[in-house]
Structures are given as structure tokens and as C-alpha cells.
């Protein structure tokens, strides 16, 4: 009777004695509660960091949007101010063909001072030249057009030649004894209607020839895969 019904209720009474309670509490705290509390803290921290991460992400997106907005504003200012400077800043309206651009239509024309033969640059390097203008538009023949020609010079040795456009532009009329090497930078020579000193590209390959001239392949600096604002030099 005692053992069956009363033993454990009587045992439980000893937990009202302070030292026993403290001892049991210490054992329980060390073995169960502190690990549980630590786990709880970790979970809270995970949620906290998750919240912080989300906030930072939002902040980052906001900052990026602000930067983009600033860039857009600057580009617009540049485009606007381009009307009065020696460089006419223009936007591309049309690429023809889209894959390897041979002609570009720009949104500046005779009304803005664009004339036939003016060179067009993109980030400081030659894109092509204006071959036709209307009042509001201008049409540019690029380095990748087969009809494009411009006088170029090797910036290292001063060797001059003619850059012939095409899918793979070439530098023509360079005699076999001239000092040209792959990696040399080509600038416009100023011979002809395009002014000198505009970077055009780099010599990619020089093929030996039995004839009078080298066969020189050029890699233009302008890459038709990138676009943005073009400059038309007055």
C-alpha cells in the first residue's frame, strides 16, 4: 500500500527542501535547460541574421537603383550638353545588321551640325564615319563595313596605311620592310577627311607575303556587342 501509492508523493516532498531543490536545479540546468536555452538563442540569432540579411539586401538594391538613376541622369546631361561642344553626343537608333553592325543610324542630323565624313567614336575609339545625313538623323558606316576606308598609322613606328573595313578589317598598303608587329596600336593618320589621332585598334596578325605588301589583320577597339552613347566629332 505504502510503496504502491504513497512512496513517490512522499519522495516529491523532499523537493520543497531548499538544498535538494538547488542541487536538482543545478543538475537539470547543466544537463537540459542550458543546452535548450542555447539552442533557443541560436535559433533566435538565425532569425535575427535572416532579418538583417533581408534588410541589407533591400538597402543594396536601393543603392544600386540610385546609382543607375544617377548614371541615367549623367548620360542625359552629357547627351544634352553634347549639342554645344565639339563632340555631338548621339544615341543609336538602329543597327544594321544587328549581328555584325555595318551601319548605324544616330539621332543627330544636319540640324545639330552633323556633316558628311565626320568620324564617330565610342568611348574614345573609332566606330566609323558619317556617310549620309538628314535634318534629324545621321547614318554611320562602321569599321565592319566592306566599303569603309580610313588612313591609319602605327603609333609605335609611324608606318602609315589604309584600314579597309570588313568582317575582319585589314591594314593595306604596308610594304614588307615596314616595322609592324602584332600588338601595335593604330591611330587615324589624319590623311583624308578624318582627323588624326583617334584610336582605331590593334594589329592582330601580320602575315608574311611574297609580294610587295604585308597582309595585316586589325582588331578594332570598338566592339559592336556593346552600345551606349556615340560621339560625332565636328
Amino acid at each position, binding site marked *: 500500500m505504502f510503496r504502491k501509492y504513497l512512496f513517490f508523493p512522499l519522495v*516529491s516532498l523532499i523537493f520543497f527542501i531548499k538544498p535538494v531543490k538547488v542541487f536538482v536545479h543545478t543538475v537539470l540546468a547543466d544537463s537540459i535547460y542550458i543546452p535548450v536555452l542555447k539552442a533557443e538563442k541560436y535559433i533566435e540569432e538565425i532569425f535575427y541574421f535572416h532579418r538583417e540579411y533581408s534588410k541589407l539586401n533591400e538597402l543594396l538594391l536601393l543603392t544600386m537603383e540610385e546609382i543607375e538613376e544617377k548614371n541615367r541622369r549623367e548620360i542625359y546631361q552629357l547627351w544634352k550638353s553634347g549639342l554645344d561642344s565639339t563632340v555631338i553626343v548621339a544615341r543609336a537608333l538602329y543597327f544594321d545588321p544587328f549581328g555584325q553592325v555595318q551601319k548605324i543610324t544616330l539621332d543627330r542630323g544636319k540640324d545639330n551640325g552633323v556633316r558628311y565624313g565626320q568620324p564617330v567614336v565610342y568611348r574614345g575609339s573609332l566606330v566609323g564615319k558619317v556617310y549620309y545625313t538628314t535634318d534629324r538623323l545621321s547614318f554611320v558606316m562602321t569599321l565592319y563595313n566592306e566599303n569603309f576606308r580610313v588612313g591609319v598609322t602605327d603609333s609605335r613606328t609611324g608606318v602609315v596605311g589604309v584600314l579597309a573595313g570588313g568582317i575582319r578589317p585589314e591594314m593595306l598598303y604596308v610594304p614588307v620592310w615596314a616595322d609592324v608587329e602584332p600588338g601595335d596600336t593604330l591611330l587615324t593618320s589624319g590623311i583624308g577627311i578624318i582627323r588624326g589621332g583617334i584610336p582605331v585598334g590593334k594589329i592582330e596578325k601580320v602575315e608574311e607575303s611574297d609580294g610587295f605588301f604585308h597582309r595585316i589583320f586589325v582588331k578594332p577597339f570598338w566592339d559592336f556587342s556593346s552600345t551606349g552613347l556615340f560621339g560625332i566629332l565636328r
Partner: protein
Amino acid sequence: MKRKSVILLILLLVSSAIRAKVTFIWLPDPVLIFLLPLIFHIEPRWVGPVALAAGILRDGLYIDIPWISPLLFTVAGAGALIYRTFVNASLLIPKIAFFTVSIVLYYVAYLYANQLGISTDYLRAILLTIVFTTVVELWLRKS
């Protein structure tokens, strides 16, 4: 049946440890919900230790409050053993009456020991505890 008892025992011990830390007074007490049906379905010799362990875990986190759960749980366990000796365990209504009395007594003793007043939150908790205890009992019977 044995598997269900083991599940219930684990739930009881875990919920006792959690209940020591997390307390929502308007929610039913999971310790009572798992303990009361369990002491009718395990071997009589385990009733006392299980009730004692659950009671210690239930109150053991805070040293300042009176530890009444070990006493009350073991008394409830003793009551269950007496019930099992003299009343047919397959009868549901007397068992629910036993649960109700135990839960009400537990809450009264708990509120009295902690010097708390009765409120609608506690009444709702008592009612929900009785309901959920009955549900667990029915789950244990279904085998």
C-alpha cells in the same frame, strides 16, 4: 500500444522541459495532456517515476517558484493506480471525470501556490486541457 506509450512518454518529457521555458496561459497544458492518459496505459511500477520526472522537469527551471508539480503529478499517479485497482479501465466516462477533477485540482493548486487569480484565460486553458486529454486518451484506445 507499447509504441504509442513510448511516443507519449517522449512527448511528455520534451513538453515538460519546453513548458518550463515557454508558457502561454490561454493554451492547454501539454504536460497534463500527455501525462494523464499515459499513467493509465503504462505498467503500474513506472507511474510514480514518470510522474515525478515530468513534475521535476515541469518546475525545475525556476528555483524561486514553489515546485508543486512533482507532488501533484505523483498524487495524480497514485490516484490513477487506485482507479486502476477499483474501477474498470475500459470505461470512458469515469476516466474523463478523473481527468477533469485532476486538471481542475492541479490548476487550483498551481494558481494558489503562485498566488495568481483565476481568469478567463485559465478557464479556457482548463477546458482545452480536458478536451485534448480526452482526445489523446481516445487515440491511445484506438489500436
